[in-house]
């Protein structure tokens, strides 16, 4: 909201220069968004007014704050006017059918007016505040709005049919051309001010063309009313019309000062347009606003602020803001002025006292009453641990937007019934890219790979930890997910190294997940061959825990890489972190290093190529119990002399006992058991 400093001076003495005024206003909580200087000692301030301070939406309101800051009081504008013998009620009839939405409606009239252009002082002030000058009568209504915060509307009385103003809901399909030139079809949700026949304006928001003031207007009917703030807010939002008027009504306008604002406008209209003011004011008010009284226990002030403010200072502040305040026995009895709609309880008064005392004078003190031990929610702890491990494996963290659309899912070529398709829609999306909540991190990661590839960055190893959303009966279930995407080289400066030795493969991705599982001490996780529409059919796996698949990993289907312009071979994984973390053990437990030496034996054998290595290892481990400590594959060979369809596997096995040095016989015995298991169970042929 714009205020002109020289205009403020009409109501309060301002002993500050422009720069100091800026500082003062912002320390009072009136945020200064911009200053436009005029000459050496005048300026227009653009102020940010809090949503609960309708009373500050005027020069008088701002002046009141400055008066309190300088311990003075404001000079109120005059509304004195000579009234004619004829009364308004002889000509005008007002009917308010919705008193809840229109707590007060007043009408008065000025006759024999000459409509013309406004005097320069008036237009200059309006224009300084970004209000266009229309004619002297309309300009006065705007002037009083800027001055006192009361929006008004002036009608050409001779175009108000039946001499009636009716506050009623619009009729269904009632058509109205508003002053912004838009023809609107209304419905009963919208409250209008109508004449005897049809709507003449949308209540509190905008007037209409048929009854507007023109050069030929002689009789001015002046409406000054107060509207229900939520109704104004809803209507203004629904119609997409925000005006100076609606901005004030939705914050709340002082119901008690409507007559004085009306009188002020009449006085000014007479001053700039001549004419006679009819006597009386039609004033329809269902209920007077009760006077609010608050007992402020003075001990509340230090209890909330943590510093002492003297009682005298507090009382003086409240009084210069327009409160009545009487102190006795440590309690201040306060009567709240009608324009302070925001003040309801002690704390509201404490804030006014604190603002005027100065926030900068409140000390900075560390709380002393409790010594607390910081702690972490287990889920945060776990998420940080996962992030840490992945970073240690060399991955870079990315963050993608959880709002998405169907096209992102189409990338994955999902079958019709796939759970990823079951997304939570947003009811009121803003842009068409953001109409659903994501069900998977995969499209986001593919997008990251794609945009980096478009910058010719093809060594991409990234992960994201984020939430996915899935519909359930309560609305949406949130699930923490982990996504990993890897492609390109894992080492920089790999000159003279064979490129395949540094390039990411399926096993690099699997290794990352294995490292994660090991660090989280998750037991019994298994990788099994699996299928997913976005993965290479021969290079896809699922990660299972206790028989349940909790993730997928593999090589991105070459058709997808091509369609998305991704680097030729890309690996991608997604894991349900929630399920994984259920089995995680974050707290390390000390295990003493072994005291007795281990013994190593190698074993090499030929087995059907179709037997997964996981199965071979499981067989070795079972047979090697309890002495077998570790099983490490060190070679796979498939060419001749190994027969077609079979492969040679070579393992290094190590044996150890926790309580003795093993004998050669013990090892021979265990190796025998392993050999038999491989031969009998898997049809392996042991090589010597």
């Amino acid at each position, binding site marked *: 909201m714009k205020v002109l400093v020289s205009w403020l001076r009409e109501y309060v003495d301002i002993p500050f220069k422009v720069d100091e005024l800026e500082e003062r206003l912002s320390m009072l909580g009136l945020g200064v968004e911009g200053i436009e200087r005029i000459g050496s000692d005048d300026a227009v301030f653009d102020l940010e007014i809090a949503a*609960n301070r309708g009373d500050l939406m005027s020069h008088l309101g701002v002046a009141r704050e400055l008066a309190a800051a300088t311990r003075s009081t404001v000079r109120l504008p005059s509304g004195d006017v000579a009234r004619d013998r004829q009364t308004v009620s002889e000509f005008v009839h007002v009917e308010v059918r919705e008193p809840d939405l229109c707590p007060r409606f007043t009408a008065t009239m000025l006759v024999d007016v000459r409509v013309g252009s406004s005097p320069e002082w008036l237009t200059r002030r309006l224009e300084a505040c970004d209000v266009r000058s229309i004619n002297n009568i309309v300009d006065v209504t705007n002037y009083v709005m800027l001055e006192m915060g009361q929006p008004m509307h002036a009608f050409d009385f001779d175009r108000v049919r039946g001499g009636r103003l009716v506050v009623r809901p619009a009729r269904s399909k009632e058509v109205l051309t508003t002053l912004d030139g838009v023809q609107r079809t209304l419905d009963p949700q919208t409250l209008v001010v109508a004449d005897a026949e049809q709507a003449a304006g949308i209540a509190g928001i905008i007037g209409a063309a048929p009854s507007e003031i023109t050069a030929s207007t002689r009789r001015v009917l002046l409406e000054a009313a107060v509207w229900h703030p939520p109704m104004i807010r809803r209507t203004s939002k629904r119609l997409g019309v925000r005006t100076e008027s609606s901005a004030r009504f939705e914050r709340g306008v002082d119901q008690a000062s409507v007559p004085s604002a009306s009188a002020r406008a009449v006085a000014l209209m007479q001053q700039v347009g001549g004419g006679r003011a009819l006597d009386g004011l039609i004033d329809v008010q269902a209920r007077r606003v009760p006077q609010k009284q608050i007992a402020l226990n003075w001990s509340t002030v230090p209890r*909330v602020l943590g510093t002492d403010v003297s009682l005298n200072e507090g009382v003086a502040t409240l009084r210069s803001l327009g409160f009545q305040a009487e102190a006795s026995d440590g309690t201040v009895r306060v009567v709240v002025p009608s324009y302070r709609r925001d003040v309801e309880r002690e704390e509201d008064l404490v804030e006014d006292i604190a603002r005027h005392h100065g926030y900068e004078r409140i000390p900075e003190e560390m709380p*002393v009453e409790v010594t607390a031990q910081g702690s972490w929610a287990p889920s945060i702890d776990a998420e940080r641990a996962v992030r840490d491990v992945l970073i240690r494996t060399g991955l870079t*963290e990315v963050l993608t937007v959880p709002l998405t659309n169907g096209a992102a899912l189409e990338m994955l070529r999902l079958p019709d019934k796939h759970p990823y398709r079951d997304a939570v829609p947003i009811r009121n999306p803003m842009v068409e890219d953001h109409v659903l909540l994501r069900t998977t991190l995969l499209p986001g990661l593919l997008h990251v790979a794609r945009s980096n590839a478009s910058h010719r960055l093809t060594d991409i190893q990234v992960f994201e930890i984020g939430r996915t959303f899935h519909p359930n009966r309560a609305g949406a279930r949130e699930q923490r997910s982990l996504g990993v995407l890897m492609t390109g080289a894992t080492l920089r*400066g790999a000159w003279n190294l064979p490129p395949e030795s540094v390039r990411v493969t399926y096993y690099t991705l699997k290794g990352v997940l294995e490292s994660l599982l090991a660090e989280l001490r998750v037991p019994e996780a298994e990788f099994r061959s699996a299928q997913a529409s976005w993965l290479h059919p021969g290079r896809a796996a699922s990660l299972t825990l206790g028989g349940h698949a909790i993730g997928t990993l593999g090589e991105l289907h070459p058709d997808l890489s091509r369609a998305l312009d991704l680097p030729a071979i890309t690996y991608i994984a997604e894991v349900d972190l929630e399920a994984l973390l259920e089995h995680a053990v974050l707290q390390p437990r000390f295990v003493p290093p072994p005291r007795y030496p281990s013994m190593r034996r190698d074993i090499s054998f030929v087995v059907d190529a179709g037997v997964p290595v996981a199965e071979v290892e499981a067989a070795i481990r079972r047979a090697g119990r309890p002495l077998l400590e570790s099983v490490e594959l060190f070679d796979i060979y498939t060419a001749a002399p190994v027969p077609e369809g079979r492969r040679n596997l070579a393992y290094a096995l190590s044996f150890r006992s926790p309580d003795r040095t093993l004998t050669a016989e013990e090892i021979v015995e265990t190796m025998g058991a392993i050999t038999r298991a491989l031969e009998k169970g898997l049809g392996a042929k042991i090589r010597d």
Partner: protein
Amino acid sequence: MAAILFSVRAMEDLKRVAQEAEAAIRGAGSKQALEEVRRAYLGRKGIVTRLFEDLPKVTAAERPAAGRRLNELRTRLETRLEERLREVTVSERTSRLAEEAIDVTLPGRKPRLGRRHVLSQTLEEVQDIFHGMGFEIVEGTEVETDEFNFERLNMGRDHPARDAQDSFFISDDLLLRTHTTVVDAHAMIGRAPPMRILTTGRCYRRDAPDWKRMPVFHQVDGFMVGEHITLANLKGVLVSFARQLFGPETKTKFVPGYFPFTEPSAELYVYFNNQWMELGGSGMFHPRVLEYAGIDPQRYTAFAFGLGIDRQVMVRYGIPDIRMLWDNDLRVLEQF
């Protein structure tokens, strides 16, 4: 040969043998050459060995002296050989090492270093600071009820402050949380004062993406409830936080503000890069918010604060466009 061992000339011949042998040792440049010299003089058929073999031909009277001279010669040559062997070994190793020299300026093999996203990094930093000040770090859901997100924070259906927090709804009552303050409303339930709670997370507001706004962003919210919690404590804790995050000399200011859930309310600014930057809002919890959570506002007071993270990261690192935080361009991510 035997004649040389006892004639005067023989004495000089022996000297000559010694001189020749020593010259040969000095001239040997490798272990192999040295071995040849050793063999020529001290080997089984070597010159010195043969002189020993001639010793019996010398008269008994002269034999001890001749034997002594021969022994001396042999010892001297052995010493010389050993010394020379050491020299040759060192020089051979030196030249071998010289041959093994590499171009130390060739590029190193650099394993890729993983890193946090700059937003995660900042959120963790903030969590760590408050954890250090005794706060319990908690989290909440991103899908929230209208009741918790607004009403329990003193923002009824028609509250004008809702305009600034235009929400994405997924049903009549469910929305994507517009601020992490909603977690405060949950955290107060089921806990008894005193409490120090902090939460961080994603929030959503109905904005089209542009250079300074994204429909999703990050916030930090915290509060402290106790019998003697004051606005001065709020200032103490937040100033300490700002100094830990931005440096010990950081200037801060608190300016009156308006939030429906706090009264009095204050906005926190820090002076950074020659400008005042707004970090967020704060204040003393409105008594009604405490009442909603079943906390007696007569007995307890509470301060609360909410800080925006994304803008702060932009200002702190000079990132001109908020969308760059979401582009995940590796050339950007790898700078942090």
